[in-house]
């Protein structure tokens, strides 16, 4: 369209233009002139019924009032949208509308805009009829849906909305369009339609929440793009509607899109299709389908979620009231030989404890009972978490639940058999069924397409020694598809699968991906600070304690804050887009996020603001979750006050932030692997197979570690052949240098550039390497209890294994005692492997002598995953499992032969057993050397003495310090297959650094103000990294940025304040102190 073809005219004196045929209201709105409207809709023809959009229009000296929605623009008209006459008419109309529909928010808001709060007209008393006769519903039904279910009947004052012949419509398709366009809530489907409306519910919220036909699957979906539910869209069903197409200003709705078949060339395939939940209907006696207050754990997870159906508040589905008591029923569909699945789903005990703790935090008076068979808290620090649940008052009931009945109010009554074998019943307001994991429904089809084998449970078949490898070369599997597992194991295994896949792909082919576009940073040095503050609710994590909107309100009052908002999740993909938009919109040159910890989330936000052309160091975080809402849950007001203080302090600092640059550092493409056990060997081989040099250092003479002691795995394989082969491959690998009998002395440097000193045969040597993998394993516990070492009949499981290797070994009766050196006063953790080990050895004894009497004295049998089968087999073969607890530990006595006394859990009397052997299931202990190694590496140790990773769930293989990774039993006790997947995972993590020729260093380094420096050299002496030197010529200090690690020791010592620790300058810290003492106004 050429310039001449536009129609030019003025609105309120401003010249505007539009296309011929456009309505005046559309041109006005496009140009930012507000005109109120009710009956006008973008997808409907103009109707001019509500008269709100009236404007005054002049042409050729004559003026008139006209409805702008139905007036086509013409050349030279002079429009006034706010003239005195217009306002008078409009206010009158609004008052009339308010009288007819006093509850309509839309009308009230418009009225408020014009300063009207009350109407002078008589208020409509008919609550059932609030219709303002705007005709939107009729028009949408006729024009868009083509259904013609509605119309007006009567004339004048008796005109009203009606269906043909005043009967309930049978042509209505219950699409709900009429309800959705009505500004006064005057129309209800139930009053016009014969047909039952079918609500569309969100799959993600498991049907607990409604969704629209056009929707995003869940709030954090990636990419966050709307999709149309073709099955339910009226347009796809009837060819009508298309309201969305008319409404979308960007023209993004494309009804012609078809599914496409894509062909991708790949060098390797990773299969990670996840799992489904076992249907609660496998246990119909638990009444899931009958009682609305019996829900699944996943449904409860959604209820607890801030973006879930009740905004994070716990409500019963029967009456939406908060429950006072609730129960969790474990093993619904798991460990079930008759229904559901036989195996243990591994994660349900912990997810139930988690849900129970969150529920309890939300409602401290809530009574919670968890009905279980065993609590399988076998993962790292899980037992401590289990203990914390007990300390909070959550009740654990060991029993079998027989059934759940309901009373007339839908209250579930749990019938169970308690520890004393007595039938009991207890009523709860709500019951959560902890249902187990099943393989994906289409697993067979997928396996067929991929030509891989599934195991007897229908999961991907793998082996103990290649836990990530499917039965077809080049296809690897991750996550629950190989066996039910929780998040850290899935994350570690997924990294491992990536390592295995990348080995198959030539190095030059690995980096295919989208190139990042170069962004030129905005120079903000001359600008006044313009700070944007984003405050996170973190679902209910912050929002339930801290009044987040009031913190945002407060942030707006702080100096130089030009924008502040609160977000449900500031870290979501969508909010990153919003942050970038707001930076542009408000010219922000500093960004503050008040949310969780900068230790986990600073890099994400830094990269977001970089994408908006801001230097990443123009960013700061206030920690109002980990250090505020979570630790002041019972003091919401003071927590809110503290959050405001923290925001004020960090905003004060942000005013003084300056851009910093990150230098590039070369990477030494070699990896140091510490420890030559199964984990270290696997990690070494995977890194070397990926094409990088490896130094494998081992303290001892032999490689192989603890696996050397094991002669048989649960499934019956002998690991020794595998181990020998692996050791040989590692020793002969041209990229691996094996250094045995090597003692580490010192580790210096940082990611990409480490130098390690070790001694070997009395000689001190240095190694240069870019990354480190810690695989130092753990030690079997050395017991002193239960007469071990005093009576030769008392042995450990490892000693029993040695004996079992002897073909002639036979025993008639054995008592095995679990949790020796685990879950006791000195070891708060579970050693994970000992239950399975006991089952394995019990079965081996039975194999030799089916009549052998075997007793296993246990606290919880933790044979998780597919190991459960062997536990069941042992029970079937007559192995007796006897429960004990800490109050009544078994006693081992020497009364001319071994006597074991244990309290019979049911009869409560003392059971005396006289076995040939007492076998102690000893746990695994962290190595004593860990402490020294941790100091050398500058990495933390957990309270149990194992190495502590960066994040227990999401970063199980990384340390917080870049370039150092962790795997195997040094992380926590685990099985061979788990060590192998973790080790492969750690190898993949190390390769992400090794594959880069350079990495960018931290920008936080010190700088010297040469004017102030007088060359005293204190900083040179104090710097732990020799990063400060005294320049000979000038006798002034100079910082070598590549060496500086940003500790700031120099800044604190300089007598002249001449050395500046960037990002933590004196001024910045002092600004925080100044802000600290101010009070919230």
């Amino acid at each position: 369209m050429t310039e001449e073809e536009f129609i030019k005219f003025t609105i309120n004196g401003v010249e505007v233009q539009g296309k011929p045929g456009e309505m005046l209201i559309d041109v006005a709105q496009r140009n930012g002139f507000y005109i109120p409207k009710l009956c006008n809709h973008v997808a409907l023809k103009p109707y001019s019924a509500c008269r709100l959009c009236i404007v005054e229009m002049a042409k050729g000296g004559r003026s008139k009032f006209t409805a702008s929605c139905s007036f086509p623009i013409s050349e030279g008209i002079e429009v006034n949208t706010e003239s005195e006459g217009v306002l008078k008419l409009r206010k009158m109309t609004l008052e009339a509308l308010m009288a007819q529909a006093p509850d309509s928010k839309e009308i009230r808001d418009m009225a408020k805009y014009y300063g009207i709060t009350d109407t002078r007209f008589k208020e409509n008393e008919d609550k059932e009829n609030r219709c303002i006769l705007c005709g939107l519903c009729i028009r949408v039904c006729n024009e868009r849906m083509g259904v013609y279910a509605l119309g007006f009947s009567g004339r004048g004052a008796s005109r009203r909305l009606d269906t043909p012949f005043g009967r309930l419509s049978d042509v209505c398709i219950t699409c709900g369009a009429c309800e959705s366009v009505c500004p006064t809530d005057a129309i209800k489907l139930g009053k016009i339609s014969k047909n039952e409306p079918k609500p569309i519910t969100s799959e993600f919220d498991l049907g607990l929440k409604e969704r629209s036909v056009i929707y995003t699957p869940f709030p954090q979906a990636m990419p966050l793009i709307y999709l149309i539910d073709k099955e339910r869209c009226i347009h796809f069903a009837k060819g009508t509607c298309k309201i969305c197409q008319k409404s979308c200003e960007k023209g993004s709705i494309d009804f012609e899109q078809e599914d496409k078949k894509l062909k991708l060339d790949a060098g390797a395939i990773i299969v990670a299709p996840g799992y489904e939940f076992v249907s609660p209907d496998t246990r119909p006696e638990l009444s899931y389908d009958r009682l609305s207050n019996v829900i699944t754990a996943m449904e409860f997870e959604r209820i607890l979620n801030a973006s879930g159906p009740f905004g994070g508040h716990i409500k019963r589905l029967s009456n939406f009231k908060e429950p006072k008591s609730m129960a969790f029923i474990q093993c619904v569909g798991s460990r079930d030989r008759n229904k559901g699945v036989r195996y243990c789903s591994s994660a349900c005990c912990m997810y139930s404890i988690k849900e129970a703790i969150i529920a309890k935090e939300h409602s401290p008076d809530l009574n919670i009972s968890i009905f279980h068979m065993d609590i399988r808290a076998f993962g790292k620090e899980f037992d401590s978490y289990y203990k914390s649940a007990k300390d909070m008052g959550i009740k654990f009931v060991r029993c079998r639940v027989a059934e759940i009945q309901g009373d007339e109010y839908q209250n579930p009554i749990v019938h169970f058999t308690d520890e004393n074998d007595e039938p009991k019943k207890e009523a709860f307001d709500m019951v959560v069924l902890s249902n187990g994991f099943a393989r994906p429904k289409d697993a067979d089809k997928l396996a067929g397409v991929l030509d891989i084998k599934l195991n007897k449970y229908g999961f991907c078949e793998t082996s103990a020694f290649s836990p990530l490898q499917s039965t077809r070369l080049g296809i690897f599997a991750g996550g629950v598809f190989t066996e039910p597992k929780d998040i850290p194991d899935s994350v570690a295994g997924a990294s491992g699968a990536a390592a295995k896949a990348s080995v198959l792909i030539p190095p030059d082919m690995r980096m295919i991906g989208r190139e990042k576009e170069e962004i030129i940073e905005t120079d903000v040095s001359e600008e006044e600070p313009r700070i944007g503050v984003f405050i996170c609710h973190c679902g209910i994590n912050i929002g339930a304690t801290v009044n987040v909107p009031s913190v945002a309100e407060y942030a707006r009052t702080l100096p130089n804050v030009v924008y502040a908002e609160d977000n449900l999740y500031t870290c979501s993909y969508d909010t990153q887009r919003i942050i970038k938009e707001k930076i542009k919109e408000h010219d922000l040159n500093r960004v503050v996020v008040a949310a969780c910890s900068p230790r986990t989330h600073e890099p994400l936000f830094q990269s977001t603001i970089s994408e908006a052309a801001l230097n990443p160091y123009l960013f700061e975080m206030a920690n109002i979750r980990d250090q505020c809402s979570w630790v002041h849950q019972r003091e919401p007001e003071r927590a809110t006050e503290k959050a405001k203080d923290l925001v004020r302090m960090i905003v004060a600092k942000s005013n003084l932030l300056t851009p910093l640059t990150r230098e590039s550092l070369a990477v030494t493409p070699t990896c140091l692997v510490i420890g030559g056990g199964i984990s270290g060997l696997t990690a070494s081989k995977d890194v070397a197979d990926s094409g990088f040099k490896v130094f494998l250092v081992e303290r001892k003479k032999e490689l192989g570690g603890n696996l050397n002691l094991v002669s048989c795995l649960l499934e019956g394989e002998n690991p020794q052949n595998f181990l020998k082969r692996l050791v040989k491959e590692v020793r002969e690998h041209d990229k691996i240098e094996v250094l045995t009998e090597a003692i580490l002395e010192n580790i210096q440097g940082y990611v990409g550039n480490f130098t390690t000193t070790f001694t070997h045969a009395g000689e001190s040597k240095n190694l240069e390497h870019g990354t480190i993998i810690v695989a130092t394993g753990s030690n079997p516990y050395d017991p002193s209890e239960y007469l071990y070492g005093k009576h030769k009949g008392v042995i450990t499981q490892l000693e029993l294994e040695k004996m079992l290797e002897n073909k002639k070994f036979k025993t008639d009766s054995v008592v095995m005692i679990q949790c020796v050196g685990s879950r006791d006063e000195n070891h708060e953790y579970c050693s994970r492997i000992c239950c399975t080990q006991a089952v394995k050895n019990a079965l081996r004894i039975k194999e030799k002598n089916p009549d052998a009497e075997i007793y296993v004295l246990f606290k919880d049998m933790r044979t998780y995953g597919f190991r459960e089968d062997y536990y069941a087999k042992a029970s079937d073969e007559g192995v007796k499992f006897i429960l004990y607890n800490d109050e009544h530990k078994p006693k081992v006595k020497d009364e001319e032969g071994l006597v074991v006394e244990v309290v019979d859990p049911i009869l409560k009397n003392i059971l005396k057993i006289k076995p040939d052997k007492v076998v102690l299931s000893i746990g695994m202990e962290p190595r004593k050397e860990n402490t020294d190694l941790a100091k050398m590496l500058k990495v933390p140790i957990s309270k149990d003495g194992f190495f502590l990773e960066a994040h227990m769930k999401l970063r199980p293989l990384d340390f917080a310090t870049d370039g150092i990774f962790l795997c195997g039993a040094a992380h926590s006790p685990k099985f061979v297959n788990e060590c192998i997947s973790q080790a492969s995972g750690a190898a993949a993590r190390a390769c992400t650094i090794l594959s880069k020729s350079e990495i960018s260093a931290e920008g936080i380094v010190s700088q010297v103000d040469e004017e102030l420096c007088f060359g005293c050299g204190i900083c040179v002496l104090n710097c732990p990294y020799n990063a400060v030197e005294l320049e000979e010529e000038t006798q002034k200090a100079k910082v070598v940025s590549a060496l500086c690690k940003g500790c700031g020791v120099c800044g604190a010592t300089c007598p002249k304040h001449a050395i500046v620790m960037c990002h933590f300058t004196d001024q910045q810290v002092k600004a925080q102190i100044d802000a600290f003492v101010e009070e919230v106004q």
Partner: protein
Amino acid sequence: MPEYEPKILAFLCNWCSYAGADLAGVSRFQYPPNVRIVRVMCSGRISPRFVLKSFQEGADGVLIAGCHPGDCHYSKGNYYTRRRLTVLGKLLEHVGVDPRRFKVKWISASEGGKFADVIKEMTENVKGLGPQRSFKRVDDDE
């Protein structure tokens, strides 16, 4: 009248004590909301001037926490902290600041419980001492 609530400022090193404070959160260890935290990369960054200024401006207590000796992410930053702040502690005591108002603690990344306990104890102590008056700016005194 509401109960007197002291204002405590804590300087925490990023790698150990700040992480320990995060762990206290993750573990939901509850402690009194009297403390405000300033994050620095290393406790060695903390200049005695920061402490003096905090007291001058009106802090009722100041806590410095860093990695345990030998655990410093920067090899030996916390050794400087230890020396420097021991001297400062003595000086503060000399000029009449009760030593219970100024604490230097070693809190590792795995000691969430210890962090919560330190805050609890310090808040209790400082509360007992009442507002800090002896070390305010001269011109602030009425």
